[in-house]
């Protein structure tokens, strides 16, 4: 039988696991989502408090100091980050979790070998996989963070023999793992594996384009969950196994949902080096002197004011310019004039699925004005004006019409079927996929260049006198 302390820990862990599951369940509805997150946080607090009772813990100051520093850092970044930068924040926190899992695995290996304890096959395998997956998740997340934060170029980075080199690193990781498990490898061997896995994580994300980062972060998120579960096997701790696997399973499902929305397989995202090959071709085709028709805020205001139906298509540009409130004010003014206004939400507009919903919800846009892709695509032919605010790839007709385009097959919003299209954009620069967009050269399209918030403000002012 367990002694009293061990029983308290075990029962607390069971309660925590239930709280995690309830928390995740409550996250499934907008009305209960916030409380769901808090329920999960309570589960976490309980699990961590119970762990402090563990007889194995003899000194507390390292834990206290480390938790304090980590908590202050985490809370500070989480509270100060801009809404637009939240995806990369998730990547960064995920990377830290991955690093933790890898370090825990290595430390436990060092402790066990030094104590002269035999390491079983199950434990050894868990240590090796926990170290490798945690390390890959760490550097992979850091690279994803760098790409989204635009510290690193968003374009796929490729060099000769890349796949061969990656394959060799992978083989190195696997062979070192085999040595550690079956051939009594030393701590040095495991550190070597750790280093190789760090390089592999970076190499694996570098050739992936910025547009695919949401899928990558989702994959890395589930990998960190798996790594956490593996440390549970190493430390004989069921709490880690349960919580880690919950994340691993949900993250995998979320990854599949995201790639479905982009009509691409996960393998294609990981190994396709999307957008790299097409850049030259796209640049060449732009040079063929197609014309872009510019418009002014005043003309835009008139076009909107005298339309019967307007559909707004928000994209990353809206997020960058923090124009969600301005766009909502413009929509309200239009509605006062009797114009029907809807928002067309592409599942992967912005940097993450749901990114646009989050931003527009912040600006108090009613849910029933937000239309999903399938709902809205049938309405475009009857729409007088489509206002594209900083979206690009998700409205690129090449995805539907041009089999040679790298985004061919991705479901898009058929805005080119509307009667008039006005595109708000900073410049003629490419979207995240790094490819040209025929929509901008369409005869029905007018371009309004400038920062989205600035442009929308000017349109709003012009509307008042229109």
């Amino acid at each position, binding site marked *: 039988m367990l002694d009293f302390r061990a029983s308290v820990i075990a029962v607390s862990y069971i309660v925590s696991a239930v709280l995690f*599951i309830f*928390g*995740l369940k409550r*996250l*499934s509805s*907008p009305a209960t*989502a*916030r409380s769901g997150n808090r329920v999960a946080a309570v589960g*976490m607090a309980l699990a*961590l408090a119970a*762990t402090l009772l563990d007889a194995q*813990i003899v000194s*507390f100051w*390292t*834990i206290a100091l*480390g*938790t*304090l520093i*980590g908590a202050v*850092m*985490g809370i500070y*970044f*989480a509270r100060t980050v801009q809404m637009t930068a*939240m995806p990369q*924040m998730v990547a*960064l*926190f*995920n990377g*830290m*979790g991955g*690093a*933790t899992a890898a*370090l*825990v695995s*290595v*430390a436990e290996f060092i402790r066990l070998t030094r104590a002269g304890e035999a390491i*079983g096959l199950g434990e050894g395998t868990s240590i090796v996989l926990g170290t490798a997956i945690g390390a890959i998740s760490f550097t992979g997340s850091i690279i994803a963070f760098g790409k989204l934060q635009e510290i690193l170029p968003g374009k796929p980075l490729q060099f000769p023999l890349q796949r061969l080199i990656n394959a060799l690193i992978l083989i190195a990781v696997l062979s070192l793992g085999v040595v550690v498990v079956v051939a009594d490898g030393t701590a040095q061997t495991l550190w070597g594996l750790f280093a190789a896995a760090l390089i592999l994580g970076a190499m694996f994300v570098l050739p992936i384009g910025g547009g695919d980062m949401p899928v990558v972060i989702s994959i890395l*998120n589930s990998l*960190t*969950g798996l790594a*956490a*579960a593996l*440390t549970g*096997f*190493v430390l004989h*701790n069921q709490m*880690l*196994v*349960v*919580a880690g696997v*919950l*994340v*691993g399973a949900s993250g995998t*499902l979320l990854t599949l949902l995201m790639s479905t929305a982009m009509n691409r397989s996960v393998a294609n995202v990981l190994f396709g080096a999307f957008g790299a090959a097409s850049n030259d071709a796209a640049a060449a085709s732009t040079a063929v002197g197609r014309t872009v028709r510019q418009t002014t805020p005043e003309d835009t205001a008139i076009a909107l004011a005298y339309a019967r139906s307007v559909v707004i298509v928000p994209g990353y540009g809206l997020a960058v310019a923090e124009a969600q409130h301005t766009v909502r004010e413009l929509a309200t003014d239009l509605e006062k004039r009797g114009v029907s206004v809807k928002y067309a939400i592409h599942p992967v507009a912005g940097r993450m699925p*749901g*990114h646009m*919903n*989050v931003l527009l*919800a*912040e600006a108090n846009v009613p849910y029933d004005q937000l239309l999903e892709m399938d709902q809205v695509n049938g309405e475009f032919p009857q729409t007088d004006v489509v206002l594209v605010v900083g979206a690009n790839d998700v409205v690129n007709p090449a995805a539907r019409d041009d089999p040679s385009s790298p985004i061919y097959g991705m479901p898009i919003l058929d805005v080119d079927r509307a009667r008039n299209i006005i595109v708000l954009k900073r410049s003629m620069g490419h979207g995240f996929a790094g490819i040209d967009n025929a929509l901008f050269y369409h005869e029905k399209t007018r371009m309004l260049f400038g920062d989205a918030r600035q442009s929308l403000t000017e349109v709003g002012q012009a509307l008042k006198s229109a």
Partner: protein
Amino acid sequence: MSQELILGIYVFIMAIFVGFEVISRVPSVLHTPLMSGTNAIHGIVVLGAMLIAGSADTPLLHAIGFIAVVFGAANVFGGFVVTDRMLEMFKKREPAATEKKDA
């Protein structure tokens, strides 16, 4: 294989099913907060870091444990706070939602 390992594998498999079952009902609007929320939950790995740091008996293990606790705690606290901030914006729709700042 030890009895404990087999039990662990059972837990592992059951948790996969629970994870899939619970998540599959989440609407796409909530995918970003969900990713962020699950991200916070895998911060549970800080628990392992605590066990390492608390039982460390060499400077090396102290150092590894300390770094792991810092990273893990950042994952947990940052993860839950950032998710809460995202979800804060999913307030219930109210008719006159324009001036709510002074509430």
